[in-house]
């Protein structure tokens, strides 16, 4: 299944595109500024297309099969989203066009801000951040800016549960704060006693993922919010797991002050092989002035309505950019991942309120059903009703030599993408499984059957697991070699 590198199919003189002749008089080039060589490949269009189509066939994707990658919400990506984002009226617009000429774009962004406010309960939303981690950085910087604006310079510590995504502590460091780890209790909640002990006037805030990365809804979330607020801190919400609670509960109502959304997860804009995503951030009244900007606002148009009768019936609005008054600033050039926003807007329009609640209900139903089929087979560290995902351990009592990595690789032979593995860190040999709402009972059963069979194989034929995968495009890859002798490009 080896596909040559694009450089290996290169041949001097070939080209994959033809360009027009220059239609203006030439101007001499500044010779001392020019480069000598440009080592790009030279391939024909047909070879180029075959190369990339063959590469695509080496990929596993949501469109080829079940992809229960925990915390990533690998749901089906509706094709209408893609069509909407390809409309030339959107694609062919420049970010610096005058606002009069981009009222469509601004309207769409305004509406998406409004939709996300309604779903989350926050007072204001900025679409600036390009990914979840980018939204986290925004949130932590906003918390920092808030404390600074009050002259409160003592607060240097961000509390982060031990079940948190690695991006939470990394974002905290980038914002210049110190990370303090808070343990989880025996039921997978934040340990309240430990939290109380840390709550003082040096605490900037707490970053909480709820449901958390164990797939559990923290039973004390309101108490956590109270404790953090009482000591003057703010509560950050990592919205990675919003897919469990749309129409079930509004995060702002639970006491969160600021939260990011992952449009590529919850709102089905695809994951793109690693991106682009979008990580809008929502905030309550207190933190809204600090949001990254610009954001879209609307104004009632007072001018004379056009002569058409129908115009008089409608309220006319003019949309434009505005920087929030105490904004932490820009997080990227221009305004956010607009094409991703189009897809999320389309998704929310197709589903409406009832559809979004159905999404969360069925995501949670699917996870609990799969859990019910697997909990007697694999160790379950926290035996509770889960939300949209759950975490098992791959440490099988009768198969001490088998590790989670082996189970994951063997799953590929059954035609499935493995779950997230070795995360969260608090579960040894973790298997973090998120089926999403877009999978049928039949798919869940087939996946459960595979995992049950693998648990059997682990006892009877562990070598089958150790040497897996057997049916993937390549056999198990040597990651240690890659790190010890890095080959990171093919030109040197």
């Amino acid at each position, binding site marked *: 299944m080896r596909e040559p590198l694009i450089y290996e199919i290169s041949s001097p003189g070939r080209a994959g595109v033809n360009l027009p002749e220059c239609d203006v008089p030439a101007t001499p080039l500044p010779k001392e500024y020019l480069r000598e060589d440009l080592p790009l490949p030279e391939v024909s269009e047909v070879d180029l297309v075959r190369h990339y189509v063959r590469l695509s066939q080496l990929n596993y994707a949501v469109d080829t099969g079940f992809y229960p990658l925990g915390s990533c919400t690998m749901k089906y990506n509706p094709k209408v989203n893609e069509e909407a984002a390809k409309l030339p009226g959107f694609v062919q617009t420049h970010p610096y066009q005058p606002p009069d000429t981009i009222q469509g774009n601004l309207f769409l962004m305004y509406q998406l801000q409004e939709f996300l406010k309604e779903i989350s309960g926050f007072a204001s939303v900025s679409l600036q951040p390009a990914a979840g981690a980018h939204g986290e950085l925004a949130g932590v910087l906003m918390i920092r800016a808030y404390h600074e604006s009050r002259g409160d310079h003592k607060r240097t510590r961000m509390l982060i549960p031990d079940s948190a995504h690695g991006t939470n502590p990394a974002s905290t460091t980038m914002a210049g704060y110190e990370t303090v780890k808070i343990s989880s209790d025996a039921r997978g909640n934040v340990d309240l006693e430990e939290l109380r002990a840390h709550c003082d006037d040096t605490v900037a805030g707490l970053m909480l993922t709820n449901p958390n990365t164990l797939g559990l809804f923290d039973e004390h979330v309101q108490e956590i919010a109270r404790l953090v607020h009482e000591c003057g801190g703010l509560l950050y919400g990592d919205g990675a797991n919003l897919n469990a609670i749309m129409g079930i509960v509004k995060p702002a109502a639970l006491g969160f002050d600021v939260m990011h959304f992952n449009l590529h997860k919850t709102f089905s804009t695809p994951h793109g092989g690693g991106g682009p995503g979008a990580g809008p951030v929502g905030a309550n009244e207190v933190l809204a002035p600090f949001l990254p900007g610009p954001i879209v606002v609307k104004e009632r148009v007072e001018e004379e309505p056009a002569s058409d009768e129908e115009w008089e019936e409608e309220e006319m609005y003019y949309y434009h950019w505005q920087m929030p008054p105490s904004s932490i600033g820009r997080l990227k050039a221009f305004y956010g991942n607009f094409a991703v926003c189009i897809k999320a807007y389309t998704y929310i329009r197709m589903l409406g309120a009832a559809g979004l609640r159905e999404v969360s209900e069925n995501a949670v139903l699917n996870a609990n059903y799969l859990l019910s089929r697997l909990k007697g087979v694999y160790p379950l560290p926290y035996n509770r009703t889960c939300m949209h995902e759950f975490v098992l351990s791959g440490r099988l009592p009768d198969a001490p030599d088998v590790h989670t990595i082996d189970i994951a690789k063997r799953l590929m032979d059954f035609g499935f993408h493995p779950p997230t593995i070795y995360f969260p860190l608090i579960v040894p040999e973790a298997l973090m499984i998120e089926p999403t709402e877009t999978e049928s009972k039949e798919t869940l059963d087939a996946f459960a059957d595979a995992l049950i069979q693998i648990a059997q194989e682990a006892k009877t034929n562990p070598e089958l697991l150790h040497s897996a995968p057997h049916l993937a495009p390549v056999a198990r890859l040597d990651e240690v070699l*890659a790190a010890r002798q890095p080959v990171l*490009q093919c030109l040197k």
Partner: protein
Amino acid sequence: MSYIPNTDADRAVMLKAIGVKNMDGLFRDVPEALRYPELKLPPPVSEMEALRELREISEYNVDLEHAPCFLGAGAYRHFVPSVVGHVIGRSEFYTAYTPYQPEISQGTLQSIFEYQSMICALTGMDVANASHYDGATALAEAVLMAVSVSRGKRRKVVLSAGVHPEYRAVVHTYTQGMALTIVGEGADPLATEVLADMIDADTACVIVQNPNFLGYLEDPAALRTLADAAHSKGALFVVSADPISLGLFSPPADYGADIVCGEGQALGGGLNFGGPYLGFFACKQQYVHKMAGRIVGQTVDRHGQRGFVLTLSAREQHIRREKATSNICSNEALMALAAAVYLAAMGKTGLRKVAELCYHKAHYAAQRLSALPGYQLLSQKPFFKEFALRCPRPVDEINEYLLDEWGIIGGYDLGKDYPGLANTMLICVTEMNTKEEIDLLVEALAPDYFPRADEEGAPDMEEAA
């Protein structure tokens, strides 16, 4: 339509297997008083209605298929070969995620490896990562990396005023919690040489953009001198570059760059109203362990066959958590794929030709526009596809006139970012602008149609200056 395959009958069987009576039984951990809030969203629509609505919204825009456009300033309209859309439209690529499981992600991994190779080819650097969000965040990450290379000891950044104003703003946003000193932005954007005097033993890095925000090319020899000045004080030299310009002009490695980053949108990405774009990032081998982001490396499988994996991940947030170089997780992989397909399609000669077309057309436009009475080029320095044009009237007035009377989207108002550049328009011309479009712009600004300010009694800006 919520794309849910389960039927009521399925749900009943599943609820029974779980051991709860109804859906509500799954949500008992959610505080009851807050459960099931009403969401006031517009009623759902069918696919047909959704597409009609979206098309109607899009038609409230003036799109550039219907208006000649001379805007650039960091977002560029270049030709995108048909193959690009077809490849990135393969759902095997776009519905996958980060290739955590390499055995079933060789398509994404190999394409990133090839992308990294081509970014190294363009920039002349040793290693490249799998992407950042955009050119601005790539530059901000370069600053974080430079500080990290000094183990946090160096706290000063020399940042050229010729760097895109929004990129500089993002550097400030990213570093607001780090107590860095950032200097250089108040200097003349066309006098890069003055930065050398600002470099001292506390300087982590010196940052320039080439071509700079005003479109002008920096002299490679002068940049080499600046790089030497940085290196002599132990600072890194960072270059933010336009990748299309690198089809023709010296790779930053040749004049001493330690880190090269920039906006890769021009490589096969549409304008898309500013996003998603592509931050490309490359550096010297010796700094690879401080570079942020995903990196793909070559290895072998257990049968000795070549394959690709994410590597050196001990740098990253999921392993190092609070000690990571950056918090980046999701990146712009699909845009990196588009860039790779674009560069492979263009190849060695195609990219050079695109750059030449931009160069010649921009110079043709500059020569014709500056021949109009009242218009002159800001500088005689060499430029690539953009140039700054002094105008006889405020830029927003000219742009309003061009749009209303001629249906032309004019250039970028440099006065917004540089107080000394009032009435100065940044004009961008790429291979997409035909000679007819350029001639139309010249005609529109000719005195017959568009009188100079003094002829209308408004203040003459040239005299005022």
